[in-house]
């Protein structure tokens, strides 16, 4: 016997809730919105990059079989739904009929198979499909995926927006990484990419919206486009971005600093959006090297740090104090196991440090040159000085630091944000610590919990496993979560019905004259 997961209904419910405000406003077709973004996307081949800046653009052009709704739950997008066999190893996806690619071709099962197979070869997060055994077109509009073993998070993986498993026409999916024509089924079609200048996308008039969706809903839902086109302008210099916005050349700043948001707050032609939470600030330890390999040392650091101080300095006006390793409102969100969060207890820190093997040697804190990360590192350095920990900061650019931080020597602390992982859910939050990837030494508890979560089809059991993981992160001070931070987005008041999300969604919004 097979059972249907009627995710369509869930999507409908979420979509109604998400779309409620704003729909009564006078919608208007036309106009070009210019969005200032800080850098150029490394590629518009959505499958091969997990860069946030690429997602901002590509999730307007391409769609996936399943996508995340407003609360990040997987819901059908190009699939009508899914039929999962009782042993949890076979997934049958009926593909929506009548969906058109931007080149006019109809979407069918062969396009889906070719795209998924391509992702397994060149996808930036190809491990998302590691559990897949075979992918077959079982009829013109049905795809059957057989898994090697049960994987409870398979639909989460399939709908991951990180490096989206975008569905391309089969002939494009046959091409190597970065060699495709940018053709998808999304509500916008690709127009031009001027390197170092901008990407332009335009409304796809042949777009076939998901008939089961009624309103804007996360990265899924009804994608109704009113704008003629959207231009993503690459503007690395913050001052120039802000000036372009104030001069009316740009209608939306994808990110702005606190002082700019404050300055423009009183301007009636401007709307300030707070995207909070957008990410976690995490302080990582290198477990492969003493003294951070010593759990007592790590607990001493955990006890001593004042996370409110860290967040208030690093992200003034846009932070939340929260010890949970998921965003508030997420399905598995819980505060169980976080009692050791933000104790800010110097005496306890000193006592624990005395019990550890630390003898005052100089430790290295690697950090990239992003202002907030440097602030976090500096606050931690100064605070730990008070309990006798001697830290030296080593600042470099992101490519340098991200390479160094995945080696077992040369560093003790590293801080940066985790944004998309908590959005994706418990498995993605756990994944960076599996096999000792981020801490450079295997942690059997985490490996065991992750394997169990992967195969736990029962939601209650999965929830319990995540609670155990969260408690373990604090009990062993595997890494420290400082808090949630957000970002300011600034838009012109003429941009109507815009609601900030993980990407600046340009469907469902219009420009007032």
């Amino acid at each position: 016997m097979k059972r249907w997961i009627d995710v369509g209904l869930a999507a409908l419910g979420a979509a109604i809730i998400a779309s409620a405000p704003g729909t009564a406003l006078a919608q208007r077709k036309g106009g070009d919105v210019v969005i200032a973004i800080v850098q150029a996307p490394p590629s518009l081949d959505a499958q091969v990059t997990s860069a946030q800046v690429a997602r901002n653009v590509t999730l307007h052009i391409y769609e996936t079989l399943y996508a995340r709704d407003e609360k990040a739950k997987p819901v059908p997008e190009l699939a009508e739904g899914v039929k999962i066999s009782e042993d949890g190893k076979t997934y049958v996806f009926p593909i929506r009929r009548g969906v058109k690619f931007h080149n006019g071709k109809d979407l069918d099962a062969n396009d889906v198979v070719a795209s998924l197979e391509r992702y397994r070869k060149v996808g930036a997060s190809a491990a998302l499909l590691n559990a897949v055994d075979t992918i077959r077109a079982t009829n013109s509009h049905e795809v059957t995926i057989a898994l090697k073993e049960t994987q409870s998070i398979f639909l989460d993986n399939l709908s991951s927006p990180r490096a989206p498993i975008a569905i391309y026409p089969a002939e494009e999916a046959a091409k190597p990484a970065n060699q495709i024509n940018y053709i998808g089924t999304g509500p916008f079609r690709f127009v031009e990419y001027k390197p170092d200048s901008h990407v332009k996308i335009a409304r796809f008039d042949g777009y076939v919206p998901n008939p089961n969706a009624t309103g804007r809903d996360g990265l899924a839902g009804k994608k109704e486009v009113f704008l003629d086109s959207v231009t993503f302008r690459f503007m690395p210099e913050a001052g120039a971005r802000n000036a372009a916005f104030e001069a009316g050349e740009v209608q939306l700043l994808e990110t702005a600093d606190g002082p700019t948001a404050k300055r423009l707050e009183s301007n009636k032609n401007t709307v300030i959006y707070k995207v909070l939470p957008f990410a976690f600030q995490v302080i990582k330890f290198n477990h492969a090297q003493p003294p951070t390999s010593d759990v007592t040392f790590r607990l001493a650091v955990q006890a001593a740090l004042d996370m409110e101080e860290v967040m208030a300095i690093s992200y003034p006006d846009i932070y939340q104090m929260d010890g949970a390793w998921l965003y508030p409102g997420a399905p598995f969100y819980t505060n169980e196991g976080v009692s050791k969060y933000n104790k800010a207890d110097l005496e306890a820190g000193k006592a624990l440090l005395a019990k550890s093997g630390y003898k005052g040697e100089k430790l290295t804190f690697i950090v990239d040159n992003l202002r907030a990360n440097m602030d976090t590192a500096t606050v931690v350095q100064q605070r730990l000085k008070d309990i006798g920990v001697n830290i030296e900061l080593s600042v470099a650019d992101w490519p340098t630091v991200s390479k160094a931080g995945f080696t077992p020597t040369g560093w003790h602390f590293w801080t940066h944000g985790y944004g998309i992982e908590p959005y994706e859910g418990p498995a993605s939050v756990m994944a960076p610590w599996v096999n000792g990837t981020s801490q450079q030494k295997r942690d059997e508890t985490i490996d065991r919990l992750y394997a169990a979560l992967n195969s736990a089809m029962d939601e209650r059991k999965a929830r319990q496993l995540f609670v155990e993981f969260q408690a373990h992160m604090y009990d062993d001070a595997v890494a420290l979560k400082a808090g949630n931070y957000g970002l300011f987005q600034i838009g012109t008041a003429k941009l109507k019905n815009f609601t900030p999300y993980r990407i600046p969604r340009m469907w469902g919004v219009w420009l007032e004259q």
Partner: protein
Amino acid sequence: MVRFLAKRLAGAVVVLAIVSLLSFAIIWLVPGDPTAAFLDASATPEQAERLRRELGLDKPILLQMLEWYSRILRGDLGHSILLNRSVAAAILERLPITLSLAGVALVLAILAGVAAGLVAAVNHNRWLDQTVMTAALFGLSVPDFWLGIMLILLFSVKLGALPTGGFVPLDEDPVGWLRSIALPATTLAVIQVGFIARMTRASMLEVLNQDFMRTADAKGLTRLDVVLRHGLPNALVPILTVAGIVAGALLGGAVIIEQVFAIPGVGRLIIGGILSRDYPVIQGGLLFVAVIYLGVNLVVDVLYAAIDPRVRLQ
């Protein structure tokens, strides 16, 4: 003259050989690699390794070096990892933008710099001289990125007269081109105006004390005629050398200005290449800039030798 040219060319070839080696050595000297631009913070080393293979970065370094030299000797600067196109094409596409920016800045700098220098020299030790020289010092000292932002605030945000950034090609819309280039070219020119003004003043002061200038005065020529027809041409030799240096400096300065004004020129290409570790772009870009510098210096050397025979006899 032929010997002089041959010596200069041989020197240029040696410099190019050294630059080409240093350009290649970037792969070892700069930590990190291009995978960081494609992947986010929680990408595993395995994912990065897979991507390195996809991008062809896993080949032995000696093989990569052989490939590099065989390529550049054929005039092929390689293939950009991020742009997915040849580096030469990417540079050539952006070169007119950078050249027009640097060219307009050079014209502005020479016109304003020479004029300011002349005014200062003719009014030596008077208040006008002091004012011009103080302004020149200010121009030399002000950071160009700060000046750029200030000009944007004034002319774009407050007055709404000029665009804040971006570039309009000349053949598409000449007026739009002029508007898009006005602020960045002015910003770029300001430092060089100060430099050229000081050089012109010094050079003119030397010429103004020469006998032939007194003779010209004695002939009853107007002061303007004396300065422009007899003084300026004789003061031009050092100014020409300075103009060569300035041309190189403007190309270098364009790197920052292109960032501030979001102009898609060669500088921005190289900065983007460095930040994302797009090795072929960094290597090809460096080599290209070195060739431009050498070319400009060579032209200046030759012109200098042509004007002043003492140079080629040394």
